[in-house]
């Protein structure tokens, strides 16, 4: 009987290498990774400097807006980083080649997640480092809580990204725009720049169903009171697990249906 390799790190690395080659092949795309996070950081940095003298909210902790904008970018870039690598295969109409090799769909997903992490780090870390000389603010001063916030938001981005890729597999490239837009519908209720208590009561219930809300409330707790809310972290992590399972289910069901419909060979622009 033939041996069946159920998971191969070599195949995951092959796919990761493909996305790294793509990134390397176009410097404008690499530059774009840095451009938006840096621009956002600059705008919110100057805004923070202004509000520091004019607002008691920012006066309590100068970095509250800067940290929020950078952490929001972890969620957004985490989702977009995954979706972009997925879309590269759609644009190249490459699924027909990939899935006649021994590559398993879940190995592809692991490579998409890994590439998302790389894209997030490439985008956010330079912006965070630039904030230190510009505004004398280091997000890294948050310490270990920052790692927890980063992880929760990245996994939430992955969950969203997988669900969006599943919907694109199901609907075709007409649904491509979702990769850039869906995450922003969550922004108003994630309490990124203001406390969740600002929201109307009925909307607060929806807000607390998102891992991101716990992160941004937790971030403010760390910055204002230097207390890490472990209860927020565990609630966010539990929600992450649930959403990731949901996102993965949407993706794998859509992939199976694409095989049934013959879309793997036809999918593309």
């Amino acid at each position, binding site marked *: 009987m033939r041996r069946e390799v159920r998971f191969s790190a070599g195949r995951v690395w092959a*796919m990761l290498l493909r996305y790294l080659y793509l990134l390397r092949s176009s410097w404008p795309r690499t530059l774009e990774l840095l451009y938006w996070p840096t621009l956002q950081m600059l705008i919110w940095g100057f805004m923070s400097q202004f509000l520091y003298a004019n607002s008691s909210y920012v006066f309590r902790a100068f970095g509250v807006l800067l940290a929020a904008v950078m952490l929001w970018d972890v969620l957004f870039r985490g989702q977009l980083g995954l979706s972009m690598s997925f879309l590269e295969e759609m644009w190249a109409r490459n699924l027909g*080649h990939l899935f006649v090799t021994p590559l398993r769909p879940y190995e592809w997903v692991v490579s998409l997640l890994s590439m998302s992490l790389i894209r997030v780090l490439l985008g956010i870390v330079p912006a965070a480092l630039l904030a230190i000389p510009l505004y004398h603010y280091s997000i890294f001063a948050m310490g270990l809580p920052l790692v927890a916030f980063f992880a929760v938001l990245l996994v939430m981005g992955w969950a969203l990204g997988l669900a969006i890729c599943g919907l694109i597999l199901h609907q075709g490239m007409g649904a491509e725009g979702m990769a850039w837009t869906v995450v922003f519908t969550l922004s108003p209720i994630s309490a990124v720049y203001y406390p969740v208590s600002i929201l109307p009561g009925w909307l607060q219930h929806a807000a607390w169903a998102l891992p991101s809300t716990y992160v941004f409330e937790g971030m403010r707790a760390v910055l204002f009171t230097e207390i890490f809310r472990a209860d927020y972290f565990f609630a966010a992590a539990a929600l992450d697990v649930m959403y990731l399972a949901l996102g993965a289910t949407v993706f794998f069901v859509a992939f199976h249906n694409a095989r049934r419909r013959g879309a793997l060979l036809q999918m593309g622009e």
Partner: protein
Amino acid sequence: MIEPAVKVDNLVKRYPTAVAVDGISFTVARGVTAALLGGNGAGKTTTLSILLGLLLPTAGRVRVLGEDMLRHRYRVLPQMNFSSPFVDLPHRLTVRQNLLIYARLYGLPQRRKRIESLAADLQISAFLERPAGKLSAGQKTRVALAKALLNEPDLLLLDEPTASLDPDTGDWVRSYLEAYRARTGATILMASHNMSEVERLCSEVLMMKAGRIVDRGSPEALIARYGRTNLEEVFLHIARQPRIELEPVP
């Protein structure tokens, strides 16, 4: 007893608005070159896609290299490969990068050596560092063939292997495929509507029409059976028949 390279039983692929494959059965013995021959919409590409595991059938059984393709395709995918001029390799990567990635996906040892050797064989060394999107149709076909032969497959599936090639390049590709089969003993199954190509390469032809196999045999036997002078005339005769009775499945 060695199982055939391909064994298909009562295969059906039904879409909500059409039946693409309508209960076909056939076998392809090991070490031969066979063709699925038919006009557009005959079901050739659908059949190849099912054999590759890219498409799930509505009903039927498919065994490839002795394994049930619907349940254990990952056991045989390392021994198979596929090439089609209609599915380009990613354009922005160089030829070498593309081949390197596929070599890794197949878990090949000594990848660089294998790529160099194939590049020399297929005369693509000169453009290994060129982006795949900047190649001519003939160059793309040779690169696609290099990708398809990376793992030296026991079963090679080809969809219109010489479509859009000039006669010289087409002839070169056909010669290469003949030599590959002779050297390795591999099985080649191609979908085509290039009659001279099929006559030259294939010892077994499955004539398809509207999702069904309407006749089968060697090119010589088919030509004799229909009293024609070449396979193209047989093809036209079958294509223009309003309805052809199926011969019994052997």
